[in-house]
């Protein structure tokens, strides 16, 4: 047992970190590519302390549910009045629900802060609100309530229609609400650090939506605790939304550097992740609030922000130079959320299929509070639903989007976190339309669609951010959740490998997952393939050897380690693992020789010395 434990812990060599760590990441994940020996840690997370008491209304929306209802009643009363006017009826509504984007310098294409501006869009306002294209809120208005929600009631929509039909009368200017001033600066205050692109990107004038990923180095010389991140699009006319991750590895930077223009096309590197279980991202009109200081996330030095911009060409070349403001806290976090992910990577939709469904579910082993949810799917998804079924059989809707639009990828943050007891089943059901009737279908004529991160592929995930009551609960949740998400990721990797069979990094990553899932046979097959693809890589042979140990194929394992050492005689991990194999084979003298080599190569390693001492003990 000792051998395997040692060996598996050492198996962190593949260049590409496995994606499983992304879906559920407890507080302090192991580093990506360690040098030298690594020994398995006890599995106990570092201490985190949770403040007692349950927070209430942590994230304040512009109005509480009660307030929203009151407003709706007021507007209903107004709509009953004949002949609505701009000053009395329309201006207050627009100011409260639209103008945060529709003001000069805002993210909307035109302002709606004066009568002259608004009347010139009266018919358009009536139509887009009736179709619920505006305000852009895809979730069912009955869900949540979520922070930043600005839904219009039916009565309010009728009011806007009646006003346009009447010829958009101004009314008595004395009825106007006091004007509001829209701050053009940082909404969360002056950031402690502003990260910008070294060089602006130029969006071409033409074509379909552009997805481009930018690695933005964060200039910090030490560990920081981040309690807020504000994204400024730089050119709100074309930046539709931003997905933001952090990458502690150089992987994203390398991809960016390899493209001569700023940023790169493709997919977000698997090493770029949500930090410590916190959502990051931006959609127009939304600013994520500052976190309570006990809930900050850790930002190591040499970390890059990875910003994927979804941009829509405007008809002329556009300069895009986003900026990200970071807000630090002086104290380390005492609580860490968990990021759960439901969803399927087995998605495989036949060309023309109008109604394809995926479902997934997970039963909570502990009590949690749901902080926020984020559904993710591409252009073929039509309706997107998440549900919590409590042990008593009652249900709570997490999210319900009847007309999914890839372009509005909000993080839906509950105004008051949703408390769910142990035994609650979280479930999701998404449906897809891969027929020609779906205008958004990226393939015309439609083609078979499988899982994949490119927008022409399909995805179906529901991310759920939860807080547990205690660290022990977080650990229990992690243990229950990890195998589920690892098993799903394996499916996704296998799909990618079908498309890119010669990508050794994919073989390495999926092999790691198989090992984690206790399935050495497919792990061996993939490491074998990886070693065949890069026969000159000592790491590839080392990985293969390590997986072979898991299958108790010790002779083959020894051969693989020897090949790794032939290529790199100073490969301490390979000496160590070969020594462990020899020990298990009863070839103690040879094992001691290998352990001595480890100590020679790594004279400062206590672990190496202990291993040697333990082996020497055997021959006494």
């Amino acid at each position, binding site marked *: 047992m000792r051998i395997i434990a040692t060996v598996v812990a050492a198996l962190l060599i593949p260049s590409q970190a496995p994606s499983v760590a992304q879906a559920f990441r407890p507080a302090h994940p192991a580093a990506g590519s360690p040098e030298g020996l690594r020994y398995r840690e006890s599995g106990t997370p570092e201490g985190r302390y949770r403040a007692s008491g349950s927070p209430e209304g942590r994230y304040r929306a512009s109005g509480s549910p009660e307030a929203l209802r009151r407003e709706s009643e007021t507007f209903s009363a107004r709509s009953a009045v004949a002949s609505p006017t701009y000053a009395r009826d329309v201006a207050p509504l627009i100011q409260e629900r639209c103008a945060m984007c529709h003001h000069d310098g805002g993210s909307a294409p035109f302002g709606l802060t004066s009568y002259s501006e608004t009347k*010139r869009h009266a*018919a358009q306002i009536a139509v887009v609100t009736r*179709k619920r294209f505006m305000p852009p809120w895809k979730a069912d208005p009955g869900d949540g309530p979520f922070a930043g929600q600005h839904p219009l009631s039916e009565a309010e929509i009728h009011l806007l229609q009646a006003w346009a039909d009447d010829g958009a009368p101004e009314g008595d200017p004395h009825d106007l609400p006091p004007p509001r001033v829209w701050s053009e600066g940082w909404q969360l205050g002056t950031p402690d650090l502003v990260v910008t692109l070294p060089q602006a990107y130029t969006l071409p*004038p*033409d074509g*379909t939506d552009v997805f481009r990923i930018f690695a933005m180095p964060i200039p910090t010389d030490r560990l920081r605790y981040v309690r807020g991140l504000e994204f400024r699009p730089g050119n709100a006319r074309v930046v539709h939304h931003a997905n933001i991750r952090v990458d502690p590895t150089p992987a994203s930077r390398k991809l960016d550097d390899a493209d001569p223009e700023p940023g790169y096309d493709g997919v977000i590197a698997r090493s770029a992740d949500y930090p410590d279980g916190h959502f990051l991202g931006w959609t127009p009109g939304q600013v994520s609030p500052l976190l309570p200081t006990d809930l900050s996330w850790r930002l190591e030095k040499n970390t890059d922000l990875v910003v994927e911009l979804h941009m829509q060409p405007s008809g002329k070349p556009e300069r895009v130079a986003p900026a990200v403001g970071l807000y630090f806290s002086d104290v380390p976090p005492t609580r860490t959320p968990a990021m759960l992910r439901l969803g399927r990577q087995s998605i495989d939709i036949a060309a023309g299929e109008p109604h394809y469904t995926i479902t997934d579910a997970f039963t909570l082993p502990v009590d949690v509070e749901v902080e926020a949810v984020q559904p993710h799917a591409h252009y073929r998804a039509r309706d997107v639903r998440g549900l919590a079924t409590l042990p008593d059989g009652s249900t709570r809707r997490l999210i319900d989007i009847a007309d999914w639009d890839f372009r509005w990828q909000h993080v839906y943050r509950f105004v008051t976190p949703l408390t769910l007891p142990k035994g609650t089943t979280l479930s999701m059901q998404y449906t897809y339309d891969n027929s020609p009737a779906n205008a*958004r*279908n990226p393939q015309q004529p439609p083609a078979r669609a499988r899982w994949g991160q490119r927008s022409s592929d399909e995805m179906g995930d529901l991310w759920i951010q939860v807080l547990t009551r205690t660290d022990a609960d977080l650990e229990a949740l992690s243990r229950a959740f990890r195998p589920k998400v690892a098993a799903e990721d394996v499916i996704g990797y296998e799909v990618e490998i079908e498309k890119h069979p010669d990508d050794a990094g994919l073989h390495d990553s999926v092999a790691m997952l198989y090992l984690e899932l206790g399935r050495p046979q497919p792990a061996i097959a993939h490491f074998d393939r990886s070693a065949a693809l890069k026969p000159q890589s000592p790491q590839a042979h080392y990985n293969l050897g390590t997986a072979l140990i898991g299958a108790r194929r010790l002779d083959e394992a020894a051969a693989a380690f020897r090949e790794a050492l032939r290529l790199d005689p100073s490969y301490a991990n390979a000496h160590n693992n070969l020594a462990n194999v020899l020990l298990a084979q009863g070839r103690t003298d040879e094992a001691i020789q290998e352990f001595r080599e480890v100590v020679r190569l790594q004279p400062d390693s206590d672990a190496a010395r202990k291993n040697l001492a333990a082996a020497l003990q055997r021959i006494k």
Partner: protein
Amino acid sequence: MGRVLALIAAVALAQASSPVRVQPLDGSSLVDPFAAPANVKAIVFLFTSTDCPISNRYAPELRRLNSLFVPQGVLFRLVYPNPAEDATAIRQHMAAFSYAGALQALRDPEHALVKAVGATITPEAAVYANGRVRYRGRVDNRFVDFGVDRPAATEHDLHDAIAAILAGRPVPHPETQPVGCYIADFAR
């Protein structure tokens, strides 16, 4: 081949004097938007506005159609129906979207041409040939509704209408429904 040529020769603007008047950008006296040099076979009116996002997204496609059909005797004229957009704003818009030097522009603040051809939306096209409007509607089917658009158009109605007119064929769909901003709003 001879037959095709004969058909093409049959296409002409065939302008009669029209009562419709619009403003040229240079501020000179009002002009008849249907008037054109004798060798022009068709005029394409493109109703647009400076701040309509869907309208603006079509700029590259409109420039493409312009360069494709100008050599075949088709004249493209941008029409700005929003009275709030003066000549200066229009010139800035044309420069920003690279229309300047390629397309003519007219102001239609009284909506004389809007009413004459029945335009309701920016962007909307009207193709005039043989003395009448032969096509009115969308440039293509890329935009289906607000918030619903195709990654690429699958029906190129304006292109096909112009090509049909030049070839002396009936226009396949003489009227289509565009998606964009409401010209009626500009009248307020």
